[in-house]
């Protein structure tokens, strides 16, 4: 067990894979000497050389596209997109080339690439530096999406992503990079995708969350237990595609209520898929409509985005109370 920040855990995961698999390379803008804008790759180029940790031109689409080609050959490229607000230029290459090649080439080739997307708000970054890109990758097919938000998950899930035979998009929790430090068991190299974690079990209401809001949500849940005697079950989805429908459905069958919380804007945010799938399978158990607490359909404002658009504790609490009260 070692204490690590989320950033250190990601760095350790990449270092481990670079060390043990010669087919792994890191690619991205500024990932080399300085270790990236956030220093996630700090020290890696120095240790593994410029052919394993590669500074690319400022061309997100080009980076993703060349990584697709490398992966076709059998490499395991790990792409860093500097901020996930700049990932949209890669959508065609990731979703309609990389994620489709296996199927389109009759199953004869695979594209084992990992895309690291530093995501979510909280650093006063405004619209392009506070982004939740998952909706642009969750439709269609051929790519997995994960959102680790503890040092352990960051470590084990990034290694799992790098070893996965298919493209994996990693939503990295920027606001937790340096602020969250916890024990990491480095013997836990992998963690099966598609499993949600019941972070706090409860019997009154199910709250589904992923990414950094997991932590705020647990705080709210704890305070609701104390103040109102409401016993909230908090589930961290962790994998979005494919998501853990079983855990969600089982939980809602017990609680009869569900609120989904995410930073992405509401309309066609991933909460829409969760709600629709869950109501399809647990309709008879629901005592209230499934509710969403999300950012509004408005770009993220430099000045007020972090404070009001991303669900803050007031809004999470109010959201949970709204569903609780709908029943009464």
């Amino acid at each position, binding site marked *: 067990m070692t204490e690590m920040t989320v950033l250190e855990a990601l760095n350790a995961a990449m270092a481990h894979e670079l060390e043990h698999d010669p087919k792994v390379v890191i690619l991205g803008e500024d990932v080399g000497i300085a270790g990236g804008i956030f220093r996630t790759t700090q020290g890696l180029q120095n240790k593994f050389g410029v052919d394993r940790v590669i500074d690319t*031109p400022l*061309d997100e689409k080009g980076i993703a596209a060349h990584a697709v080609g*490398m992966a*076709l050959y059998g490499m395991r490229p790990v792409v860093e997109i500097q901020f996930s607000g700049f990932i949209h230029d890669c959508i065609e290459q990731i979703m309609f*080339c990389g994620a489709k090649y*296996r199927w389109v*080439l009759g199953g004869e080739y695979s594209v084992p690439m990992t895309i690291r997307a530093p995501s979510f708000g909280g650093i006063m970054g405004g619209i392009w530096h506070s982004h939740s890109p998952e909706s642009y990758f969750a439709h269609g097919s051929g790519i997995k999406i994960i959102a680790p938000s503890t040092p352990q998950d960051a470590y084990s899930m990034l290694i799992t992503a790098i070893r996965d035979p*298919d493209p994996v998009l990693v939503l990295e929790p920027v606001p937790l990079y340096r602020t969250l430090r916890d024990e990491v068991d480095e013997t836990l190299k992998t963690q099966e995708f598609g499993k949600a974690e019941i972070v706090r079990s409860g019997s009154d209401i199910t709250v589904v969350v992923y990414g950094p809001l997991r932590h705020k949500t647990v705080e709210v849940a704890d305070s609701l237990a104390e103040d109102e005697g409401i016993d909230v079950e908090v589930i961290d989805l962790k994998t979005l595609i494919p998501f853990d429908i079983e855990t969600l459905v089982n939980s809602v069958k017990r609680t009869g209520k569900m609120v989904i919380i995410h930073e992405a804007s509401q309309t066609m945010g991933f909460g829409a898929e969760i709600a629709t799938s869950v109501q399809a399978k647990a309709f008879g158990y629901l005592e209230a409509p499934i509710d969403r607490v999300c950012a509004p359909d408005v770009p993220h404002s430099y000045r007020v985005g972090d404070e009001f658009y991303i669900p803050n504790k007031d809004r999470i609490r109010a959201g949970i109370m709204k569903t609780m009260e709908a029943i009464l």
Partner: protein
Amino acid sequence: MSTQSDNKFTGNPREPEPVPLAQADELGIKQVLDCDGNANGNLADPNLSEDEVRKFYEMMVLVRAIDDRGWKLQRSGRIAFWIPLLGQEAVQVGVTCALDDKDWIFRAHRELAVWLLRGKSLKMLFAQFYGAEEEPLRGRRLPCLIGSRDINLISSTTQVGASLPHAVGAAWAAKLLGGSEKFLIFFGDGSASRGEFHSAMNFAGIHQPPVMMVCVNNGWAVTTPLDRQTASANFAAKGDNYGVRNVRVDGNDPLALYAVTKDAHDNIEEYGPTLIEAVTFRLGYHTSSDNPDLYRHEQECELWKPWDPVRRLRLYMENKGWWDQTREDALIALHEKEIQEAVTAAEAMKIPGPASQFDDVFAETNWMIEEQKERILSEVKADD
């Protein structure tokens, strides 16, 4: 300042430009053969053996015959779609023959010859046109978008130009991992307008992977002529911007194409990547959905006919005493028979049902796909 507005539009196809191949020297186009098949161009005859040249010729004639048959199958409703290659036989044959079989080729949409030159069967080729379950792409792709891993031939992803960086990336990976394969991609003049051309050339210039990028400049992208595609008619020179070696070659001259590609291939350690511009012309329709009469002056094809690659190579062989009408007749008859057999075989094949198409989305399937599959198969079965 010249502007598009200067071009008053008449509603008629505009007058054709002179054939650039006729001014190869001025335009910096490498050429072995003149239009009568004499090897007196600015590039030395590679002096291939009779067998080799015959192989080139027979393959060019064969893909032309396949194109003819494919077209007819489409017109008669037997297959849904066709992508002609008429007039572009030389580039696919000359270029492919300059490579080793282990080298990877990324296709655009007109290169059927690679499949056959690398030993795959006519029968499987037609199986793909029919979308048979047993061909490598399992009926998933449009007719002509062939590919197969056992011959290192990668079918394109349909967005033209989008696979340029895939070829560069694969080549870069091979270089980093010490692989000995070389890589080649075919792409069209139109495709070079896309961002991926810029990305691929830029990365190739910096990282110098073992890749050859063959721009099949056939003068048109569907209805759009070259000067609406770029203000610089010289495609090869675009490599200069990126520190990428480049060469223009007569795209209807299989010997020049072979020589130029072989040079780029064999000296790739020294040269780095090469952008090869093959100047050619699409004599046929863009696809079976097209109608060139709407946009292309009928005279344009006439101007290009003397530069027909099949005709030029035949004249070269006749000049050498390697070919005559008897052999030609025998070849045509043989192809006709082989093609007919392939058609018959392909028509007898099973086409895929819905179930097999659910495979290969991921290495391992997931509950979402399985649940959807089960539901669809049950609903379809229930009612049919």
